[in-house]
């Protein structure tokens, strides 16, 4: 699907305000799952390195083409932004009447970065954070949702998990070297 073929039809009821539910995927399957308050969300190594959470939203009462997804993590204590990724994508309407990004392409989801952790104090893995998603179509409809989550290094391979935990530890004054053995944080 692309902009040339997207019909920009309206999803839902134009008389109602936009609705959204935060969704994520683990980067392995194309399945998008709803995020609930207190959930663990996986930190996944994207192609470029570092660790991200692949996030989006299922939405309705909004137009479906070139919908902007702006995802970020925030520190719940300070509201400081910990990581941000925004991109636009066309939504696919499911049988349930909600529109979702096509989860088979991770480039359609906000690749919300959290690591390498460049904060000199805060560790990012295993520590609660606010996951926020702002959704906007091309016609002025917008909605923002957020949940308290715990970003977690979940990869099964021990070396990759150690790498994730190293990259998601606070940035030491002496610098960080994270190899596949986990390195020194």
């Amino acid at each position, binding site marked *: 699907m692309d902009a040339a073929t997207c019909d920009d039809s309206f999803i839902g009821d134009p008389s109602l305000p936009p609705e959204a539910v935060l969704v994520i995927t683990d980067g392995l399957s194309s399945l998008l799952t709803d995020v609930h308050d207190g959930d663990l969300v996986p930190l996944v190594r994207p192609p*470029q390195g570092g660790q991200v959470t692949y996030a989006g939203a299922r939405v309705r009462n909004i137009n479906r083409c070139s919908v902007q997804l*702006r995802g970020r993590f925030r520190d719940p204590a300070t509201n400081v*932004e*910990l990581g941000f990724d925004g991109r*636009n994508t066309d939504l696919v309407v499911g049988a349930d009447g909600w529109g979702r990004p096509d989860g088979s392409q991770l480039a359609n989801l906000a690749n919300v970065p959290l690591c390498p952790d*460049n904060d000199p104090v805060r560790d990012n893995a295993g520590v609660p954070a606010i996951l926020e998603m702002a959704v906007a179509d091309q016609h002025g409809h917008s909605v923002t949702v957020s949940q308290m989550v715990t970003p977690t290094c979940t990869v099964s391979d021990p070396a990759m998990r150690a790498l994730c935990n190293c990259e998601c530890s606070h940035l030491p004054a002496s*610098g960080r070297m994270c190899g596949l053995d986990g390195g020194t944080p």
Partner: protein
Amino acid sequence: MMIDAMKRLMMGVGVALLAVGCGGGSKGDVILDPPAASEGFQLNVPKFDVAAGDEVQNCYFYAVPGTPGQDVWINHFKLAANVGTHHVNIFRVKTIVGLSGNPGDVVESKNGMGPCFVSSNWADWPLVVNTQQGGSTVDWTMPDGVGQRFTPGELLMVQIHFVNATTQQAPDGGRGAANFYYMQAPPANEMGTIFATNQNIRVCPGDNDKTFETHCKTPLTGATIIAANGHFHSRGVEFTMNVTDALGNDMLPQPFYTSDTWNEPPMTLGLDIKIPDGGGVSWTCEFSADPSSCGNPNDSCCFTFGGKVESQEHCNAFIYYYPKIQDYSCF
């Protein structure tokens, strides 16, 4: 280590060569005289062929000259490359993954294949300096009191990419050089760099204004950006950078860097942009792809991340700032 070609060439630090010309068609080899030995050193990339239809990306390795135990400080660069260069990026060699060499070695790669094209091979190699100006010389002197520090014997890698195909042409073949000029005394401030790359991008035929924005949060306090440039390929429409506060809000009413020229993007010098403490840098790449274009025929003809200019895309930001805490990358 997977290296498809490695050989020693007539290259090295301090060897004279290069830079003339000024973009467009054939201009002959650029000529850049090396500095006097007391004034600096040159990283010289000797001429190599770029056949019609090919993209060649080579990685050359050099050692920083100097006296052991005495830091080398640089505050002035001259960077030159022949017409058709796609980029010249210079990195400090760190973790070895699939790409390495000794001083004087070159690793050759072509058409998207080979270790010099595999970005994960230099994921933690700090940026030193870069240019994307083919057929001309970038002459950059840092602000007073700012310099870049090197260690004698430190290994540097010059990655140089030439395209001689549809989107860019290299009528004179590949060639380039970089002059590093010494400071007389250590400066008050060390310059650091940020290499920021958004690799999970996908642009498909018919896409219009496909946008990817990322924030690079920094650990810096009191930092000032002094130069920047952005890099994407021919689907790129506009590249912008701004600075963000700790909450993630863009702080400048207009981006401090804007490029709508994918093949000769400006290197913006003379910047004086403060990074808010606790904030960072945002960078945005906007793409459009003609409905008849085709990147990867096995992926709906979409263009995804990669170094092959003809069929892949990039969204990379190069940022120079002081004072340095450490060099780091953002993804």
